[in-house]
């Protein structure tokens, strides 16, 4: 089972082990990670699951789809080249150990 680490803007880290295939959004919402809301339940429709993925994992991420791309233009915190929607990234062995930064603002 893969591990995910969420880093809050103040530097606090929260690590958790999840079932294969769990999304970054679902894992965070289920364990109450602050700053990840996931209002639309993962339909790439609300932009409240925005995360910054650490660059060392960039090469292992799925491509950004059209729906995700336009929604990333609607995030509250600034979009950067590390920005992704947590609901569009399922974590499996290939992304084991992934580290993401939680933006300061989500709504």
């Amino acid at each position: 089972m893969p591990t995910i680490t969420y880093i809050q803007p103040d530097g606090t880290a929260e690590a958790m082990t999840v079932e294969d295939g769990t999304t970054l959004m679902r894992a965070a919402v289920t364990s109450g990670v602050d700053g990840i809301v996931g209002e639309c339940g993962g339909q790439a429709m609300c932009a409240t699951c925005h995360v910054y993925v650490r660059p060392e994992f960039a090469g292992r991420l799925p491509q950004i789809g059209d729906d995700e791309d336009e929604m990333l233009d609607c995030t509250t915190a600034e979009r950067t080249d590390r920005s992704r929607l947590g609901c569009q990234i399922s974590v499996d062995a290939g992304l084991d150990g992934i580290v993401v930064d939680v933006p300061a603002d989500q709504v």
Partner: protein
Amino acid sequence: MTALPASGIPALAANTRVPATLPSPAPDSAFQGAETVREAPVADWVTLADLREDPFPIYRRLRAEAPVHWVPAVNRYMVVSYDACHTVEQDADTFSANEEGSLMKRAMGHSMLRKDDPEHRADRDSYGSTLRPGTIKNHWMEIFERNHRRYLDQLKAKGPGADFVWDYAAPYAAENLRLICGFHNATQEDLQRWSQTMIDGTGNYADDPEVWAKAAASSAEVDAAIDEMLVYLKDRPDPSLLSGLASMPIPLEAIRANLKMTIGGGLNEPRDVLATTAWALLSCPEQLEAVRSEPKLWAAAFEESVRWVAPIGMYPRQTTRETVLGGVRLPAGAKLGVVLGSANRDPKVWEDPESFNVLRAKKPHLAFGGGQHFCAGAWVGRASVAQVALPGAFAELRNLRLEPAGSAIAAGWVFRGMTSMPVAWD
């Protein structure tokens, strides 16, 4: 007016009238622990007339007593705390949208709004990218601007004393929705009539035959209009919903039901947010000044407005099994009213929740619902109201004001908005 120390900008206090007969709320510490399960308290003091006039004092008392109540007047359990509403939204297995005996199904057919995944998913996907931000930016924004121009000119032509809701917000929202749906064979007036008569059907608990007759007549008109447009749009595609649906393998019955639900759910809400936000800002000049001097705040004003007065105040769900919600036992098959209008004023989440304050700390409100049924039109609502209509109307109507003062009326609880809002300008 209550001054908020943090901002120095007075917030608009809500109508805080509490009927004199209501005893003061009991402390809510008894149900804090998840271990203590109790039966739903019976709120037999709640009446439909009071809810319609001003539901917020009622919500305040309900929230203080328990997160979930049985309310005989509504014939449902009312879910009133933020936490409990949020739990319902995120757990579709326990809280089904496919309600038995739903009047909405009778008035509009079985739309996506009353289906659960995976059936819901197929219907929702059939809406494609029409309502998504990319299409809004590339296509609808220009149309919203044009419609804004047209109906603001009509309001101006009518002169001071015109009604902000009926002479501007309603036709603007209806014309936008007409084009988004793709009804090139109907008028915005048709859309308003269809929407209201079918909505009246979904709320026809009194089983009034005249209400059913009007809803059925509108439903038949919509069916005919859809049939015609599906053929027309096949050869002349545009970014509308019906155009996308014309080339999709989806049953006609689903198309009809989904379009009727969208007519019912995509017109009154932007109309109501537009008028409620304008009313709130006009009632609180310091906040209006703040928004005028920082145009980014139009978006904040929109979000605060839908938090403060959720245009869809309540929607139904039904339990699929016995469960405990907010410490209250619910039997299987229990019919619930998820009261967003109350969740959005939960003092456990917001400081001074009864006040309208565009500068308050931002937190996720529930006005667009959540989970599978998260509003498909949220970005259309934001773009058409917060980006086009509000800044446009306030820029062009110099010294816009409520006149005669005190004559604007807000009403409703399942749907809430301004029912009358006479204005004047220079």
